[in-house]
């Protein structure tokens, strides 16, 4: 029975509110952005809302930092704020932060509603955080829907681009379909255990495990419930065969949003899956691990196979993110202290490398240098050596080459899996990552080693044409001035590129670069952080 008195206990409420402070701040700022959008003139709007969003994320970080030592269960077990959250909140907020940094540049050239965009980003980030801190099926469902709805809207944000709308539509239909499964699964879990709270379900199963007279019907209900719940979660984690939305919606969405989906949503999905996993699946009821590792293998193999011949960069990264999900899942399956902390590490690493890659894609997209087709990247490595090097670095990190965060993540995850005895799983994963390297390297090949001697590709061609025109115009001038013209032209493009690559984007890239490197070289602080945060989970 409810203790109604407790509700009105100011201290309790305050504590409960504290537990959602980081999310609340974001939501407040989201509202602020919406409100500010009403009053300011449109030209200022975009700038204001951008800064407001950044400030919101900063405040959220601040609260997160302030609360980081606390473990607070708020609102009668709807939500919990613990060390696990701290880690994932950090990752999600970083993802949101980087997304916002990238967005400014991206949307400057496109006519869309800017304040709403930033508020939606903040909403979706807060939804992700809510999802991670949910310990109750109702909250899980609500947060997933909240997050998804934000994502649907953001995916379809590019008005007038049929690809964007199509992506939103596909995402919406599939997402809702998967949610229905999640819900139906919850029904069965509820029927089997009588609880919606993960803690209580955990306890129930824990008791039943030692109960000889475990009723068979509950057993069946639990099985069906667990499977359907897994379907719902697997969809968000984009595991094969529930991945189908991933490539299309990543492709159609505005690139910053793709980044948010690829990093934030994935982290949130894995975060909640780890919660559910450690509370429910970790008992390995009905040998549930079999399903999981089959899914892991299928996922990474499919992801890699599908990415192999991909020529569209965004889709390629979408498929690669499917494959990455497979690797991450291995860490979850490995379970335990090391498995989960490795997974967390991987997730954080994944944020930086993916966000970095997307930032560079956006940069090139904005410079109109490259579409997302790989072909247009040929020779870019020479033209923009630093950006090219950074992009290569991120791709290598995704491929799991050492000195990058990606390697360390894989290393932690695979070690944990071996420790738990999943030898074959690791071997398959390693083989997978070996052949996954091919398509990452393919991009690098395009950037640096294209057979096309004309380094700039199409761009250079047009340059060449221009200079021919100039030449034709200035026939009476001497060749020296023509040469000057030519070099002036290239210098001009360089200058333009530097100018239009906004500082925000460059900052985002630099952040990603630094962290990808640091996580790859000196992962000690982060892995300790992850290990500490894991302790607040159950059955660890």
């Amino acid at each position: 029975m409810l203790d109604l008195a407790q509700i009105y206990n100011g201290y309790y409420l305050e504590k409960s509110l504290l537990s959602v402070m980081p999310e609340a701040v974001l939501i407040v700022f989201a509202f602020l952005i919406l409100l500010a959008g009403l009053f300011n003139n449109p030209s200022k709007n975009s700038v204001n809302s951008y800064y407001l969003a950044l400030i919101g994320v900063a405040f959220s970080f601040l609260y997160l930092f302030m609360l980081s030592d606390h473990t607070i269960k708020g609102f009668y077990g709807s939500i919990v704020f613990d060390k696990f959250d701290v880690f994932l909140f950090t990752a999600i907020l970083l993802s949101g932060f980087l997304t916002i940094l990238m967005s400014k540049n991206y949307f400057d050239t496109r006519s869309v509603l800017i304040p709403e965009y930033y508020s939606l980003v903040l909403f979706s980030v807060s939804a992700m955080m809510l999802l991670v801190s949910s310990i109750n099926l109702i909250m899980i469902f609500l947060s997933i829907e909240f997050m998804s709805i934000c994502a649907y809207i953001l995916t379809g944000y590019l008005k007038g681009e049929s690809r964007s709308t199509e992506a939103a539509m596909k995402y919406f239909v599939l997402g809702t379909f998967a949610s229905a499964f999640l819900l139906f699964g919850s029904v069965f879990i509820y029927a089997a255990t009588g609880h919606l709270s993960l803690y209580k379900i955990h306890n129930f199963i824990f008791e039943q495990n030692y109960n000889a007279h475990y009723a068979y019907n509950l057993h069946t209900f639990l099985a069906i419930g667990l499977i359907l719940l897994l379907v719902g979660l697997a969809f968000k984690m984009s595991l094969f065969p529930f991945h189908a939305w991933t490539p299309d919606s990543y492709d159609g969405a505005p690139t910053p949003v793709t980044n948010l989906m690829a990093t934030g949503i994935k982290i949130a999905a894995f975060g909640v899956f780890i919660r559910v996993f450690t509370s429910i699946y970790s008992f390995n009821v009905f040998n549930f691990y079999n399903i999981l590792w089959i899914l892991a293998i299928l996922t990474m193999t499919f992801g890699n196979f599908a990415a192999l011949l991909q020529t569209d960069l965004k889709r390629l990264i979408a498929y690669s993110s499917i494959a990455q999900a497979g690797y991450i899942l291995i860490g979850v399956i490995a379970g335990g202290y090391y498995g989960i902390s490795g997974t967390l590490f991987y997730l954080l690493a994944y944020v930086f490398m993916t966000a970095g890659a997307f930032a560079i894609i956006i940069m090139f997209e904005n410079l109109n240098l490259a579409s997302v087709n790989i072909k247009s990247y040929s020779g870019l490595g020479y033209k923009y050596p630093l950006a090219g090097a950074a992009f290569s670095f991120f791709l290598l990190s995704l491929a799991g080459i050492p000195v990058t965060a990606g390697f360390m993540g894989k290393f932690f995850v695979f070690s944990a899996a071996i420790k738990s005895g999943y030898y074959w799983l690791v071997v398959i994963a390693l083989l997978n990552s070996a052949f996954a390297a091919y398509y990452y390297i393919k991009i690098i090949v395009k950037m640096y080693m294209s057979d096309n001697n004309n380094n700039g590709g199409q761009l250079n061609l047009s340059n060449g044409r221009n200079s021919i025109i100039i030449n034709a115009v200035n026939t009476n001038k001497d060749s020296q001035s023509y040469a000057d013209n030519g070099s002036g032209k290239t210098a001009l493009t360089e200058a333009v590129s530097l100018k239009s690559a906004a500082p925000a984007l460059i900052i985002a890239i630099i952040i990603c670069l630094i962290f990808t490197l640091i996580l790859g070289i000196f992962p000690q602080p982060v892995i300790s952080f992850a290990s500490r945060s894991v302790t607040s989970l159950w059955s660890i």
Partner: protein
Amino acid sequence: MNSKDLIVWLIPFFPLLGAILLGVFGKYLKNYSGYLGSVFIVISFILSTVIFFTVAYGHSFTSTLYSWIDASYFKVNVSTTVDRLSVIMLVMVTGISSLVHIYSIGYMKDDKGFARYFSYLNLFVFSMIMLIMANNFLLLYVFWEAVGFCSYILIGFWYEKKSASNAGKKAFIVNRIGDFGFALGVMLIFVNMGTLSYSSVFSGIHLLPPYLITTIALLLFAGAVGKSAQFPLHVWLPDAMEGPTPVSALIHAATMVTAGVYLIARCHIIFSYSPDASNVVLIIGGTTAFIAAFIAMTQFDIKRIIAYSTISQLGYMFMAVGIGSYAAGIFHLVSHAIFKGLLFLTAGSVMHGMSGELDLRKMGGLYSKMKKTAITFIVGGLALSGIPPFSGFFSKDAILASLFNKGDYFFWIIGELVAFMTAFYIFRLIFNVFFGESHADKNLHVHESPNVMTIPLIILACFAAVFGFIGMPPFDHSIFYNFINKDFANSFNFSPAVNNYPWYLLSTVSVIAGLSGIYAAYVFYIKKSFDLEMLKKRFKTVYALSFNKLYIDEIYDFAIVKPMKNFSVFLWRVVDSFVIDGAVNGIAQWISVTSSKVRKVQNGMLMSYIFTLSVGVIALLAYYFVR
């Protein structure tokens, strides 16, 4: 390091210094390089003589320069042992080298690679000296290969000529085949004895089981077969005549090719413990002697004839060491070195005078035009034919007598037969070149060689004439035997030519064989009593066999070289490119084909996405149902 050691190390040092100096600064030294190179060798020769007398009137001694390899239990020093065997070789090598160097100053005068030539030659002398003085098997092996290398670069000295560079390569590779055996022998010695130094090996060899000793001996002999151009690895030596003639004289007649004989003499203890191996040596030696002489009879290239003669004479030496008559072998080695060096140098002189002509069908009547050359050549020829009192008579006779005394009558007969053939072919050469009418190009200005060339010839001819007398009084009691046998005394198979038969009877047989050979040549080529063409037709097969060198090169080409090449191509094209790379690329191909199929799952149709998802759900549920 006392003075003896110092002298010992100075002997190889000067040629090495010469090689380096001439190699690096040859461009600036120009014509002086010849004199410089010769001076170094002469110094070496003088020092060798000093050492000769030191040893002759003292004891053999060992001198260590430094520890070369020291890998846990494998220790090898760079050190020398100078004993009677080595000093003889030393003096012989440095002496002939000096003469050849001096001769070369004239012979190579106008060559572009004058300095290079002397550099190589000095390097060769250095290697040869070290080969002789080495006191362990590894060092021996090292310089064994080093002389092979020098021979390679000297044969290919005129590298622009394809035949020359081919010949050099062939020499090196064929030698390597022999060295393959040699190396294995060295390893076998080491793994069984734990050491490679001569003294330890020789003193402990009898502790090994006989089959091992035989194996070791045979493997070492394989090296000797390669280096000394014995059948079946003799094929490189005739081709080696592509090199400058002084090189042929020095390396391919006097010194390097005799290293095989030296090796067996050096390892006489090992061979004396293994009668089987010794028999093999004997058989190979006999076969080679016969085959080479047989081939030599019909060749037209004067250098090749002398080369085959060298092979044949080396066969004699091997027969000698094969029956354990090491002293006789070494005796013949030295005397052969002198007269064969002489023959080559005179052949060189002929070539010099004939502007490089080698075909004896295009010569004739040169006696009048180049008297010094002709006379020295004839001296050499007589020595080779074993006509007393020239040196060849004494040394060859010693071998034949040993064979006879040992009871190897078969090989004695072969020896006598070869003696006949030898006399025949060398006088066929002499008669064709120096006598009869000239077949040379009329425009050719034939001239006698300069003094710098003829003086060495004369010196050598003198030696060829008188050297044999150190083999007097006959056999065991001779000066030479007394000197050398101190080294072979502990050989257990030691078989001196025992006076079971009056020596003069045997000698008479040999002399008759030689003289009849000369006579036969005289009948054929001076008197022309027989129609040669008819004889050729009559004995078509035999003639063809001889003329085509028993088709051995062709057999090798057909049986080894071509199959190996084809096999290599097979390995490359089929195994490497098709099978292995095919598998690798096949996997890649398979992956990309699979990938293109897998991609079709994502066909853009929402229907199929929903369907995929449902199938996933059903499969998961089914898994639990069938579980």
